[in-house]
């Protein structure tokens, strides 16, 4: 609202602040849901969930799902679906293994080739979807079969591994502590003079420094954008809400980073993930490219008549999805340290579930990157927590299925009420 009109300003300002709050309400709800679920399992597992080693594991276990969820969010917002990502990830893992183990390629070159191949696979599927107008469900269903088959063919029934150490670092490595560890409580030594596990408290200093830099940058940009809004006469959200939001967010980041720091520091893969998340948030929120995806998903005909090249956009989206599936395949292979014929099976369903739990609409046009990431972690924490509790895999599936249904039902119920 501009401040030019005198009387209605306060009302309108209130309305637009309320609208902004409502817009974010879902996200707050998701964060709260994730925290509640984590606290629940923390209690049920007698405190194992929040152990530094387990939190680190949680990240490693879910990293490839999160990476693919970013692309899947674009796909689903655009009004499509991609069922092939699991098979493509598995296939790319095999390609990487053949290149590195059988032909001795350097991990970096092999990795780049793999991501390029992923992009070509995604682009090819995108071509059929965008230009031939074949429903994405069908194109990617056939893609799923094709790449599952190619994976089996390429590996010929064997598992290929192990990978060169450099490549393993993608999933198993941690950033080096260039500053040097900070010993808060020295660990107890065992008979042979080595530190015993779970004793003492040694912080990975570089991780903590990075944490503080991230929080500082976050607060700086939040304040800056708030200032900018105010100086142009647009009301920002209420100050109290602004403070609470940022303090809570900063607290969560510092807490998690502290946990990582007291284990082995930041996992390499978390750096990759974090970079991609920030990139995709920026993509969807601030760039014309992202805005056009939402416009297309909301009403493709209107988008087309507004001059958006919907075919090309769809093509790009699937290309990006293919590259992310390839990256996920690399992360997964590096984590297992081998390429197996079963790699990637069923992964697409976890990815799609994460995006829907995160609040995306199956009709297209609605969804958030942050939501998809939190959705992936909600599913991941449940996997992890139920695993520690020793719940059988059969019941884990049942519970996860019900959570997915419940989350979407709750969402629709809320929308109807609003």
């Amino acid at each position, binding site marked *: 609202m501009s401040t030019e009109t005198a009387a209605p300003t306060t009302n309108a300002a209130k309305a637009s602040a309320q609208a902004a709050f409502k817009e974010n309400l879902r996200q707050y709800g998701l964060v709260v849901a994730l925290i509640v679920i984590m606290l629940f399992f923390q209690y049920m597992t007698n405190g194992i969930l929040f152990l530094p080693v387990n939190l680190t594991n949680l990240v490693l276990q879910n990293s490839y799902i999160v990476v693919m969820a970013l692309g899947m969010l674009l796909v689903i917002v655009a009004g499509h679906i991609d069922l092939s990502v699991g098979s493509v990830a598995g296939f790319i893992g095999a390609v990487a293994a053949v290149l590195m183990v059988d032909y001795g390629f350097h991990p970096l070159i092999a990795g780049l080739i793999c991501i390029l191949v992923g992009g070509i696979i995604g682009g090819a599927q995108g071509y059929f979807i965008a230009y031939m107008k074949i429903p994405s469900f069908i194109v990617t269903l056939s893609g799923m079969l094709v790449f599952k088959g190619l994976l089996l063919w390429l590996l010929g029934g064997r598992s290929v591994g192990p990978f060169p150490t450099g490549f393993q670092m993608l999933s198993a490595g941690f950033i080096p502590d260039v500053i040097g560890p900070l010993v808060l409580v020295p660990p107890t030594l065992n008979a042979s003079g080595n530190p015993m596990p779970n004793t003492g408290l040694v912080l990975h200093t570089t991780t903590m420094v990075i944490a503080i830099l991230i929080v500082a940058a976050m607060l700086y940009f939040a304040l800056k954008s708030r200032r900018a809004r105010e100086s142009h006469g647009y009301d920002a959200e209420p100050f109290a809400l602004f403070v609470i939001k940022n303090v809570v967010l900063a607290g969560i980041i510092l807490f998690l980073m502290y946990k990582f720091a007291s284990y082995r520091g930041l996992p390499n893969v978390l750096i990759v993930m974090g970079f991609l998340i920030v990139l995709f948030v920026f993509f969807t929120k601030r760039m*014309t490219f992202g805005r056009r995806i939402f416009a297309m998903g909301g009403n493709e005909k209107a988008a087309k008549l507004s*001059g958006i090249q919907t075919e090309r956009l769809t093509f790009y989206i699937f290309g990006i999805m293919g590259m992310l599936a390839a990256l996920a395949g690399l992360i997964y292979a590096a984590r297992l340290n081998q390429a197996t014929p079963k790699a990637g099976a069923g992964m697409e369903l976890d990815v799609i579930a994460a995006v829907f739990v995160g609040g995306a*609409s199956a009709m297209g046009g609605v969804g958030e990157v942050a939501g998809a990431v939190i959705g992936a972690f909600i599913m991941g924490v449940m996997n992890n927590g139920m695993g520690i509790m020793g719940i059988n895999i059969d019941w884990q599936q049942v519970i996860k299925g019900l959570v997915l249904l419940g989350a979407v039902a709750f969402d629709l119920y809320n929308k109807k*009420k609003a």
Partner: protein
Amino acid sequence: MATAPMNAQTNAPATDTLLEMRDITKTFPGVKALSNVNLNVRSGEIHAIVGENGAGKSTLMKVLSGVYPFGDYSGEIFYEGEECRFTGIHDSEKRGIVIIHQELALVPLLSIAENLFLGNEQTRFGVIDWNLARRRAADLLRKVGLREDPDTLITNIGTGKQQLVEIAKALAKDVKLLILDEPTASLSEKDSQHLLDLLLEFKRQGMTAILISHKLNEVKKVADRVTVIRDGQTIETMDKDDVTEDRIITSMVGRTMEDRYPTRTPNVGETIFEVKNWTVHHQLHPERMVIKGIDLHVKKGEVVGIAGLMGAGRTEFAMSVFGRTYGTNISGEVFVHGKKADTSTVGKAVAQGLAYATEDRKVYGLNLIDHIKHNVTIANLPGVSSGTGVINDLAELKVANEYRKKTNIRSSSVYQITGNLSGGNQQKVVLSKWLFSDPDILILDEPTRGIDVGAKYEIYTIINKLAEEGKGILVISSEMPELLGICDRIYVLNEGRIVGEMAGHEASQEKIMRAIVRGEEKAAS
């Protein structure tokens, strides 16, 4: 109230009253949609309900038909002398109250017969008897004057005929009170006439009807009485003899409408837009020529109308020019500012300074699940972003607020979801979108379809302002008075050809119709 000491019999309405709705109040969260509305419909009459969009007409009909069940509203409904408490649409249909909604509820890929008996299948021992269904369908189609095979798929007949199928469907349910919500909104003049005649014929046979309409001339033509609703309240009910357009409009908008069309002194400059020998073939049947060599031009500051019947090819022409969004085998030339222009994609057309605001804003115009701000900027995102494609949030907000004010969009803020706006305000969002792309030539396709008198006036004002700013405007409309009211020059289009061109002050409905008929004769000979 049913529990009140005074019982329903002494309270019952007079005998010639078929329906009486008393003190109907219906609230939605935060909004009072209806407050103490009264409606009295006599047996055998055609009762028109008029009011601006969002006045509560459709809500009232949903209360009547049980879409909002008893208990969801307060007030009483008396039908055929007894109080009714419908809990669903089935209850009201059982009593012979059938409503035909503005958006037709037909299944496109089923046949006419299948649609006629949808949910009311002609069965014997639980099995559908297709011979019986077809025979009854043929009967019903004869009654509504539709000469089509009952096995024809709905998708293969036009909107006008589909409307007749809806009416036949109502007849299949033994209708006593037929409710038509904006039945002629998407019909051509000819189809509308047929529909209204049919309504009068049914009246002679004793049927009662409620007609919700924006078109005052047709209300005047068929209605026995008219009830005006404004802001969820009954304003007045008048008899046929008292009905004048002025009185209805005054009641509807709550103020006198001096003139339905704002005045403008035309200041016409040089030709800025010209189309030569434009030929287009049908999208799906490339052997059929839809546009047959059209030549037309628009001058700077000029408002040019395209009149014609439904199916004349007006929208097809506009869309084929605007980025070839319709048709195949398109040939012909477009000139902008005297230079040959490439408009073969929407992007190129926009770059040439063209804009096309669609006739169907919900399907082709807006992202209904997103808010005003995003809809306004979507056709010109570079206008609010840096060269690298990063959107400047504040610049975008500023633009959205500016156009919201400029086109007078009524909303709580630019963050209101466009799907929740009234038709008139949605149209203003579509206009804002195109104004922000800063075109020289605007093609407005049915810019006031389905919006109320007040909003229409605002749209005309915007059009006038644009003309004064020196833009060329091409208006496509099925409402001839509208073209006569706002255009400097009018082309008449019929079956893909221009069959007449006249200056606005010389034009009349008769002249336009004569041009169409002459064109048809010429085509036939």
